[in-house]
């Protein structure tokens, strides 16, 4: 979360002479990251007060006028289309060179002298939104009339005339430090880093006691540990003075009326949300903090109707709901121009309840943002005091009751013990106890001690994790504004370290013993697989782990085979994929028009539901070769597979026509499908996708897939290599070509021939031919045969005898016709 903070405002609470740049740098270093700095005098450069001396019609345009405007260094003509432009006004003039936002939209644009419909314009009379105050209420096509806001001379810079000489910091606040979501919070941190003085907060003094007027009843003390309110009468509701409006505008709030503005002002200044009810509209002079009844309704300040469920905390009067606790007030009881009595609420609500209610209603506000991070019950009083002060001063109101408070239990500060030696060990630097204590005290912690280890602690309030003292203790009391984020003694280490400055810590390389964790086999070989496939010309894709029901159905898988998300982002992302195939086919479909052929792969886990346990997440590999010719694609895919297996050290792999085609018949082309085995383990399939897939996924090209889906694959990978002794005697080569039946499988032939001759070392298929000259239904194969003996050089004659045996087998057993 971020907060916009005016440096001038911070300086009301902090005595500092640092430049804005220095302050930003220092406060960033301790954790209040200044993400952006806006120097207003720069923003308003060349924007000045103008005085409209005369308004003339534009000769060439009905909707435009010419304003003779005194801009200090003289009177100039400015063309203007503002509907409320009139003589005698003080206006905001952007001179040539000024940067403005045209109609409040888009980027800043630099103004130049220009002709508008034939008349030269020496600047621009600006609307509110054109110089960045879009939150001020303003009319359509109206210029900003600042006659009431300033009496500065024409030509005075706007920054000066409207007292905008300020720097705005946009500061990121971490979710645990809601105390920094305020001017006072930033001033506190500022006081720590600048080591300069902090001014105190308001307290409630001199108020009437024992005059309750309203009854406050908290029915849910766990959800509302404290509720305070005060009644103020004689209030005159109207616009806030400019200084207050300006502060709100620069902080990102929209000015509404003085009472509401004051509650927002205090919220921003003290970090405690307040709410103002029109007391006359509250039935029965009663405030009840309770859970809503199911179906109860209220129109909120945003003008929308909300219906509540019975777990939501609301503020009610005797008859109706008047506010969603900690989130937003109701329209019916809001302050209006006619309001004269207001009841100001300053309360603490349970963070979780506020968060869940806001999310359920989809209703968010500045108050809710603070409450859901957890506020201290102790911060209600100073904020109420500050509001009373401002209301009295700015609206003429007078307090008409005591501070009426319902609080479940009295406040107890959190106290922890603290061992400086343990802190030093965790920080890794030497720092004296004195220095640590000093830093903690600067942060508002109250430090007692040191106490000796043997000595029993006076009042050990909370246990300590991780940093139990052995030597010396300090006992540390947490200031109320930190009572949510300081949870254990170890938290003090961070406080000390951040104020000391992480930039002052050295960088040290850790030494230590050797650890024994082995690299995960799948991680290691997944990487090797990717590199090999890339080298083989394949392109890697990454798909979401999610798939849609449509993809799942197209894949022919039942819904209960996949992990289903209870709260998916959309129907596209409802399931966790149980296979990589559907996303791969979708990828092919999405690229087929631009790339009519491609070789792709993906390695990723898939998710398989398991009864009573976490889903399994085995790593799968899918390879797709798509294009025109299924036979060619099959061989390309198989070639890649062979290369991959070799590179992964897997030698005992084989393909078999599917062991149970019924399993995969819906997925693959029956005649172009084989099962992949490693040893006796079935690890996946290779095959051309079925007509059903082609149809379901809308594929134009032919696609051959390799789907490796069994864990044996990665577990069989090895980087261990073996080698054979180089041969001592030369080989003898012979070639054979023969025609035989198309369906005679090459591997069967190779296997048979290998058994036919003991001297045959290697067979290599070097040509397959079908077509002209070869009968339909037949194919021509050409093979190299290599013969070798380990004991002697072979003679031509004995090789001829071996070839003769082989020819015989081919003719007899495979009915081959030899061509040579």
């Amino acid at each position, binding site marked *: 979360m971020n907060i916009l903070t005016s440096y001038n405002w911070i300086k009301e609470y902090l005595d500092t002479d640092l430049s804005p740049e220095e302050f930003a740098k220092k406060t960033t270093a301790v954790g209040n990251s*200044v993400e952006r700095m806006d120097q207003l005098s720069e923003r308003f450069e060349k924007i000045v007060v103008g005085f409209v001396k005369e308004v003339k019609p534009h000769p060439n345009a009905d909707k435009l006028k010419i304003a003779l405007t005194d801009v200090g260094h003289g009177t100039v003509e400015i063309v203007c289309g503002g509907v409320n432009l009139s003589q005698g006004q003080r206006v905001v003039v952007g001179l040539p060179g000024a940067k403005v936002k045209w109609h409040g939209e888009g980027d800043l644009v630099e103004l130049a002298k220009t002709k508008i419909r034939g008349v030269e314009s020496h600047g621009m009379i600006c609307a509110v939104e054109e110089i960045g105050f879009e939150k001020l209420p303003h009319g359509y096509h109206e210029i900003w009339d600042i006659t009431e806001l300033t009496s500065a001379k024409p030509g005075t810079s706007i920054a000066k005339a409207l007292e905008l000489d300020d720097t705005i910091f946009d500061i990121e606040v*971490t979710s645990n430090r809601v105390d920094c979501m305020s001017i006072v919070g930033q001033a506190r941190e500022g006081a720590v880093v600048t080591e300069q003085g902090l001014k105190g907060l308001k307290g409630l003094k001199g108020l009437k006691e024992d005059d309750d007027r309203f009854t406050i009843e908290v029915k849910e003390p766990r959800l509302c540990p404290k509720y305070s309110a005060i009644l103020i009468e004689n209030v005159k509701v109207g616009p806030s003075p400019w200084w207050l409006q300006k502060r709100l505008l620069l902080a990102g709030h929209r000015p509404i009326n003085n009472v509401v503005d004051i509650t927002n002002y205090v919220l921003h200044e003290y970090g405690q949300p307040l709410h103002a009810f029109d007391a006359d509209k509250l039935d029965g002079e009663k405030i009840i903090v309770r859970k809503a009844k199911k179906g109860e309704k209220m129109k909120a300040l945003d003008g929308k109707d909300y219906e509540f469920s019975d777990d939501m905390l609301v503020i009610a009067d005797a008859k109706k709901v008047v506010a969603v606790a900690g989130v937003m007030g109701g329209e019916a009881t809001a302050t209006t121009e006619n309001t004269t009595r207001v009841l100001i609420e300053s309360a603490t609500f349970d963070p979780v309840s506020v968060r869940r209610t806001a999310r359920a209603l989809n209703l968010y506000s500045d108050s809710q943002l603070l409450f859901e991070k957890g506020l201290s019950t102790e911060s209600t009083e100073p904020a109420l005091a500050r509001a009373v002060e401002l209301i009295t001063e700015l609206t003429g109101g007078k307090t008409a009751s005591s501070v009426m408070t319902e609080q479940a239990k009295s406040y107890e500060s959190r106290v922890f013990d603290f061992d400086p030696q343990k802190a030093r060990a965790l920080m890794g630097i030497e720092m004296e106890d004195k220095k640590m204590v000093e830093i903690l005290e600067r942060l508002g912690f109250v430090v007692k001690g040191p106490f000796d280890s043997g000595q029993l602690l006076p009042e050990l309030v909370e246990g300590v994790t991780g940093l139990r003292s052995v030597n010396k203790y300090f006992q540390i009391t947490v200031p109320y504004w930190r009572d949510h984020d300081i949870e254990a003694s170890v938290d003090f280490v961070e406080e000390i370290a951040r104020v000391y400055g992480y930039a002052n*810590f050295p960088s040290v390389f850790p030494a230590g013993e050797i650890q024994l964790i082995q690299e995960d086999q799948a991680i290691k070989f997944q990487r090797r697989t990717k590199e090999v496939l890339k080298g083989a010309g394949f392109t890697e*894709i990454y798909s*979401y782990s999610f798939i849609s029901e449509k993809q799942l159905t197209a894949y022919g898988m039942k819904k209960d085979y996949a992990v289903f998300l*209870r709260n998916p982002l959309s129907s596209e992302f409802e399931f966790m994929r149980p296979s990589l195939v559907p996303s791969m086919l979708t990828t092919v479909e999405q*690229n087929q028009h*631009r790339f009519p052929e491609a070789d792709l792969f993906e390695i990723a886990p898939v998710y398989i539901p398991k009864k009573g346990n976490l889903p399994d997440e085995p790593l799968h590999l899918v390879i797709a070769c798509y294009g025109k010719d299924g036979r060619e694609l099959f061989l390309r895919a198989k070639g890649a597979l062979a290369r991959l297996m070799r590179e992964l050290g897997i030698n005992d792999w084989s393909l078999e026509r599917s062991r149970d085609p019924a399993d995969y018949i819906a997925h693959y082309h029956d005649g172009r499908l084989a099962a992949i085995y490693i040893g006796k383990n079935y690890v996946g399939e290779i095959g051309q996708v079925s007509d059903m897939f082609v149809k379901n996924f809308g594929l134009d090209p032919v696609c051959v897939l390799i789907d490796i889906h069994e864990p044996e694959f990665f577990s069989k990978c090895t980087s261990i290599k073996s080698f054979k002794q180089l041969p001592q005697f030369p080989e003898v080569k012979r070639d054979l070509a023969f025609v035989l039946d198309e369906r005679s499988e090459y591997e069967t032939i190779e296997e048979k021939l290998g058994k036919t001759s003991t001297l045959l070392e290697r067979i290599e298929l070097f040509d397959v031919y079908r077509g002209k000259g070869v009968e339909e239904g037949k194919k021509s194969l050409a093979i190299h045969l290599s013969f070798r003996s380990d004991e002697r050089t072979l003679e031509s004659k004995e090789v001829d005898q071996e070839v003769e045996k082989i020819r015989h087998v081919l003719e007899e057993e495979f009915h081959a016709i030899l061509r040579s």
Partner: protein
Amino acid sequence: MKIELEQLKKDFENTLRDVKDHVALEEVKNEFLGRKGKLKTLLKDVATLADEERKAIGKLANEIKDALETAYGQKESELDMRHPGSRLDQEWIDVTEPGKFPSEGHLHPVTQAISEITDIFARVGFTSVRAPEIDWDYYVFESLNMPKDHPARDDWETFFVDLPEGKKGKIVLTPHTSNSQVRVMETTKPPIRIININRTYRRQIDISHIPMFHQFEGLMIDKNISVVHLKGILDYFAKTFFGPNRRTRLRPHHFRFTEPSFEVDITCGVCGGNENGNCRLCKGGWLELGGAGMVHPNVIKAGGHDPEVYSGFAFGWGVERTLMMREGIKIDDIRVLYKNDLRFVKQF
């Protein structure tokens, strides 16, 4: 004989000088160096010389022969190079034609980033481990010191799986890689130095957010580990991955499972860390790299170790983000990473 040999050398050099093509060169070679050439003829009588003289002449003859052959070789390559119609000239190719590739493969940029990150940490002894992407609430939240009502455990931030709750709570898609922390500690006695790179899931999708992205998590647990060691490892990574001139800073931050916690910033590569510049990539010269911190004692305890004995640090951040930061890229729409448009993937 000696004088004759020297003369022969001179004659050869003079003749060679006038040679203009390969044919003439071949003739000269035959004339002097051929089987019936001048050198052979001259040396015919060497055998008849006295021992001593024979040795001296033999030596000189060899030197002269070498010199002639060298001169011939030089002339030959000279002719090859310079003359139109020679072999090298005929074999001229256009070296400016585009090269041909064996078909070109591509790895997804995320794979490339993961490999680099893994290698960098492997060099300092961090081992890659695998942890589930779908895990029990216990490992994802509970054991990481996140209370039951923490916002991250609500439906609108984290994906919940429609499977029955177990002893370790609901089943969720991991929104970060920190579930590896307690999982590794449960099974391993320190010293521990691991990294876990995994897919992570969060419920948001727009031009700068994707519901699935990658994170990497580093964890070190040992005796006497402190903030200065975390700083050491982070500096090492930043300088190795991003370059030696980049600086880092630790900004105090807040995470439930580390204490103290930081955000790690690195100087911007585009503007070089100019704090007052108006950079298109960074805010005030610094880029946010990721989160880090000292492992919370409660987390060490949940991992089954004694936080009085062991301490450690953890760090983790987005892989995609880290990659884009190094290249100085601002991808207009980060969703392109997982759309598998081959026009995108084939660029890497």
